[in-house]
């Protein structure tokens, strides 16, 4: 997946400015930067969620498997079905059971909902991959809101990967979690590498260093630099990157 000259606006506010970023298939890419630098907006442009906000607008290109998802005639709904997303706060559907939450994306699958037995298998596999199966296998039919915050977030990851998306977008997925839950989610992101392309927005540089292959640094809507994570943190090319990662601002 890659973006070319991507601009995003909220009304007159120019939130993302000419970002061209390559996301290597099967890698974890972290996007870091101070609050308000446009990193979440960039993420929301990758699955066409940005345009769901009133007065929001996107210019430029985002290529997925060589095709521009902003090309004329591309259905944003179909794009979102191929790209999973997890938000800052857990968003389990409160009226659904644990199982039905994980199966929620399957209901709108392009080729129809699989049969009941197949859904059960997919739900189990997704919960296994989200490292949640052992904790919820005995309460698949109880309400998802009964789970702890950390469990809810892993449930949301299971829900996002159950449809086998090509890309998984994580928007500060551990911002509302305790350290132990954060660690579990980070391990999970690390496990998902190679199977799925992951983009994780985080304001936590240690987290970016721990989980990502590539790190992109954004400032005031612009992509300052993107490099292999180790290189970016040890020998940044841009002074502003160096200033940020050494804690001189942000």
């Amino acid at each position, binding site marked *: 997946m890659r973006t070319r000259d991507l601009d995003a606006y909220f009304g007159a506010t120019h939130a993302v400015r000419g970002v061209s970023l390559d996301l290597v298939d099967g890698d974890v890419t972290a996007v870091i930067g101070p609050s308000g630098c446009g990193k979440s907006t960039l993420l929301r442009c990758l699955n066409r969620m940005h345009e769901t906000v009133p007065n929001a607008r996107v210019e430029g290109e985002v290529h997925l498997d060589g095709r521009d998802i902003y090309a004329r005639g591309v259905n944003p709904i179909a794009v979102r079905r191929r790209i999973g997303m997890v938000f800052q706060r857990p968003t389990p559907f409160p009226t659904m059971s644990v199982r039905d939450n994980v199966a929620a994306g399957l209901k*709108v699958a392009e080729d129809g909902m699989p049969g009941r037995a197949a859904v059960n298998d997919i739900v189990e596999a997704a919960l296994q991959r989200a490292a949640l199966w052992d904790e919820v296998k005995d309460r698949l039919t109880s309400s998802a809101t009964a789970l702890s915050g950390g469990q809810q977030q892993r449930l949301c990851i299971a829900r996002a990967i159950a449809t086998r998306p090509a890309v998984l977008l994580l928007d500060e997925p551990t911002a509302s979690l305790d350290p132990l839950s954060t660690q579990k989610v980070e391990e999970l992101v690390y496990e998902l590498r190679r199977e799925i392309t992951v983009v994780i927005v985080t304001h936590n540089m240690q987290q970016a260093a721990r989980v990502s292959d590539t790190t992109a640094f954004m400032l005031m809507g612009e992509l300052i630099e993107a490099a292999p994570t180790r290189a970016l943190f040890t020998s940044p090319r841009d002074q502003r990157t160096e200033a940020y990662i050494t804690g001189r601002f942000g």
Partner: protein
Amino acid sequence: MVALTYGAAVGATLPLLFILGHLLVQGATSINVDFFTRLGPNPGEAGGGMGNAIVGTLVIVAIAGAIGLPIGIGSGLYLAERRDSRLANLVRFLADVLNGLPSIIIGIFAWQVLVRPVGHFSALAGGIALGAMMIPLVSRTTEEMILLVPVALREAALALGYTRWRTSLAIVLRTALPGIVTGALVAIARIAGETAPLLFTAFGNQFWSFTLDQPIAALPLQIYVYAISPYDDWHRLAWAGALVLIGVVFAISLAARAATRSRLGSSGD
């Protein structure tokens, strides 16, 4: 000052307690199986009941619900989804105006357009008049309940590839449903006791009627007819009818509270 507010608080409950106590004393003795199953007695005869009025009220409320619930919930969903559009603001304003209209005006209007052209009163006209009263009540509570659903849930569904309308129905409306049910029950309780709109529409009927295009009895109308009559037996029936009506409204209110509680109980955390 504190004592005064205590006094006012007690005073706020007194009218209800007096009314309930009085109705129990006057009406409880006339409530028996006959009351629910029989027609009213001839003048001067003892016994009888208000079975036809109870059925009539159920029929009229069912018609009102069939009109008021879908339109009210649908427009409430629209108001919440298109919150700031000009049409939404206009609809919201008009719904508030309709909500504030004296109910007798709705009755007169229903008479003008639904009764006069066909030349006779009907259950349908009564149901439509009460349905019109329900629409703004249901619409505004539906809107408020939907706005309580976090935006994050809507975004989560959209990000899974749900279409906009499917997100609205399967996620947002479904999450708000307990609150909407509460609002619907409150609206039904409110219109079940309405009398004025029925005076010119359903009109009342001393006999059994199950046809929608004929005049039909209703509890509030029958209470009125019996209460202003000169017969003691009819007075007793009017008290009993008032007690049943208040019991029905009270039961619906309890159901609404139960629905609200189940929503709070299931929201977790």
